[in-house]
């Protein structure tokens, strides 16, 4: 698609050191090929599909925007939008802040710190099947871990997973527990990059611990902070397994994220046109979030 265009570059650039020629495209071509085949094509195919009443096994009827009007009137779907958003608010800041806190506390060379780093990373390698199984054992009011602790203090058990107000926070806690390793590691790495001279300078200036943190450490790891936020938003937008395995989206739709909705509609109900339409809305939302993030980041970058 860009061969002709590449030729233009060629004439301009051969004189320069950049030596641009058609081979420039070779660097991006492998990824672009996979991207087009596995993302762009399916995306448009999915958009087309969303305009159909379609069955998992092939039959399709064009219905225009009906799926979308149906979605906007679907209480369950609207609930999932809110749930997804709420979940991100619950998890992403917590992951970033706890991850940073742990990194700050464990950024030392002692043996204890090394062991603790391993501890905080260990949950990341468990598969979602196991994580949810463990946390159900923790949350279940009947002989569960938390209930047992509460009982020791003479308090009644709390039914986290079957309480509308607590189900999603419970999933959020599970998720934070599960995912804390990556942000912590990214922050640890960023902290190692902060030049020692900065701390020495701060120490000479008699800056206190908090002052140092605020005016030396945090500004130095700004970029990592942004990276962690982006990674986590993208990841947590796609909450699926934890909700499916811990609460099935209940009670009363209180913990069903949009991805679980898509999954259920597509694979349990085989209403793939409807599922595709919901997926397009999810795409639109993430896109808006990403663009907003991009513009905010750019403005800050320019300042």
């Amino acid at each position, binding site marked *: 698609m860009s061969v002709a265009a590449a030729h233009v570059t060629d004439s301009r650039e051969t004189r320069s050191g950049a030596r641009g020629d058609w081979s420039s495209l070779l660097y991006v071509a492998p990824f672009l090929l996979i991207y087009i085949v596995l993302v762009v094509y399916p995306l448009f195919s999915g958009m087309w599909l969303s305009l159909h*009443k*379609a*069955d*998992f*096994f092939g*039959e399709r*009827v064009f219905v225009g925007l009906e799926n979308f009007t*149906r979605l906007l009137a*679907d*209480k*369950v779907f609207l609930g999932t939008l809110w749930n997804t958003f709420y979940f991100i608010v619950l998890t992403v800041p917590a992951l970033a802040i706890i991850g940073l806190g742990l990194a700050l506390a464990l950024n030392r060379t002692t043996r204890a710190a090394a062991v603790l780093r391993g501890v905080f990373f260990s949950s990341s390698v468990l598969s979602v099947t196991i994580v949810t199984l463990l946390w*159900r054992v923790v949350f*279940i*009011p*009947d*002989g*569960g871990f938390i209930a047992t602790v509460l009982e020791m203090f003479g308090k009644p*058990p709390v*039914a986290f*997973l*079957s309480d*509308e107000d607590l189900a999603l926070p419970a999933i959020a806690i599970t998720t934070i527990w599960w995912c804390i390793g990556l942000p912590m590691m990214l922050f640890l790495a960023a902290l190692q990059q902060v030049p020692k001279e900065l701390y020495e300078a701060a120490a000479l200036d008699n800056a206190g611990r908090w002052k140092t943190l605020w005016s030396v450490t945090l500004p130095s790891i700004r970029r990592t902070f942004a990276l962690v936020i982006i990674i986590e938003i993208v990841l947590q937008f796609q909450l699926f397994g934890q909700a499916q395995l*811990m*609460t*099935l*989206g*209940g*009670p*009363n*739709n209180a913990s069903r994220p949009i991805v679980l909705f898509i999954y*259920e509609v597509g*694979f*349990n*109900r*085989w*209403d793939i046109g*409807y599922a595709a339409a919901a997926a397009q809305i999810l795409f639109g939302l993430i896109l808006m979030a990403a663009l907003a993030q991009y513009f905010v980041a750019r403005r800050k970058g320019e300042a």
Partner: protein
Amino acid sequence: MKRRAFAGLAGAALLAGCGVSQAPNEIVVQRFFGTCNAQYGSQTDVAAAQTECGIITTLINKFRAENPDIKVTVSTVAWPGYNQLSAQMATGDAPDVVTMHESAIPDFQSRHLLEPMGEELRAVGVEPDNFTEASLKGVTIAGNVWGMPFDTWAPLWHINMNYFRQAGLVRDDKPILPSSPEELIEQARQFKKATGKPYFVQALANQKPAYSRNLYTYLMQQDADFFADPKRIKLRTPEARRIVEMFRTLYEEGLTTRDQDYAAATRGFMNGDGGVYLVGTWMIGDYEAESRRPDRPLSNGYTVYPYPQLFPEKDATFADGHSWVMPVKERTPQQRQAVYRLLKFLADNNFQWARTGHLPAFTSVIESAEFKALPYRDNIAKIALTGTPLPAGVERRFAIEDTIGEELAPAIAGQKSVEAALFDAEHRVNDLLFHVLATSGEP
């Protein structure tokens, strides 16, 4: 890095060729019921095996041993495995024979994804006339048999007789069971007063189907034709309201355990959390074993019954069954024959499977002395007659069960009005069914 990339590429090239192809005498059996190779991986002594997993594993091992000319590949899937199966069918990579709930058959059958099996079953000596009534209903659509039934299962009342005795609810060594909603609540109160325990143990957390099955059973007992039109459910009825309100009262008064999930309830009943556990046939074996252990809440005090008839109109229990179906697929004559040999073998060993607690799918087995000799089977054998699935034309039953359960749960827990819950459930189910693409009749 260079070396790494190269190794990656070489590896990738190797792996691409690593697709799985099937030998002409190989059949792929796909099933749920879990994996237990550690205990039963090499066992062929079916009679010694316990649990669903153990029995099905040893059954297939035995079949392998007896039929060395057939290569049986077992593929275990996460329960219930239909998403995976749909994906496989969509890719034309279906297994040869699969476990399927009878309630799921209409979905696949209506899309022409299953083979009719009646004639060939008959040809190998598995006579559909020998299916129990519940089983026959479960696998028959439009006069054709679309699967070989393996069992009938239904939710049951598993009863802690020790508590019942304590509550004065035992007569002639049999539990006194209610015969109306009012009586049920009365007895539950009496039970709680005497034992301090809730009457019911229920898995109400994370468990959508249980709610729906309770509703189905008691609607059927009232003879309410809630699926008169298989494309429309009717739930805004006094019958439905009566049932939900009954469960809501039980919940409100603490006459049931509240926040247990399936695992907790299963354990809870064993540990004496309450009097009656509403769960399926598959737990009979475990609880029966438990009742023979000394000094346990269930010691010498366990029995099991079908759902008691709370309404005079009809004796009915919602039931479903496991069956074996054959996805539409090109098979060598050898493979086809192998599948039916396996099905015949499974049918012949239906008694062994019935030891799990499920009811046999064959009249001859249910009437056999060896089945009757199994504990409690007398109590529940009538389910083979009274067990009722949803009407044959109803599709997407798993999704419907989930939707109803999702709406009933908050109604029973008092977070939503009964009226609103039934309205939403009805609306959502009908919306779901309305959007199921009409399929074009018979293949």
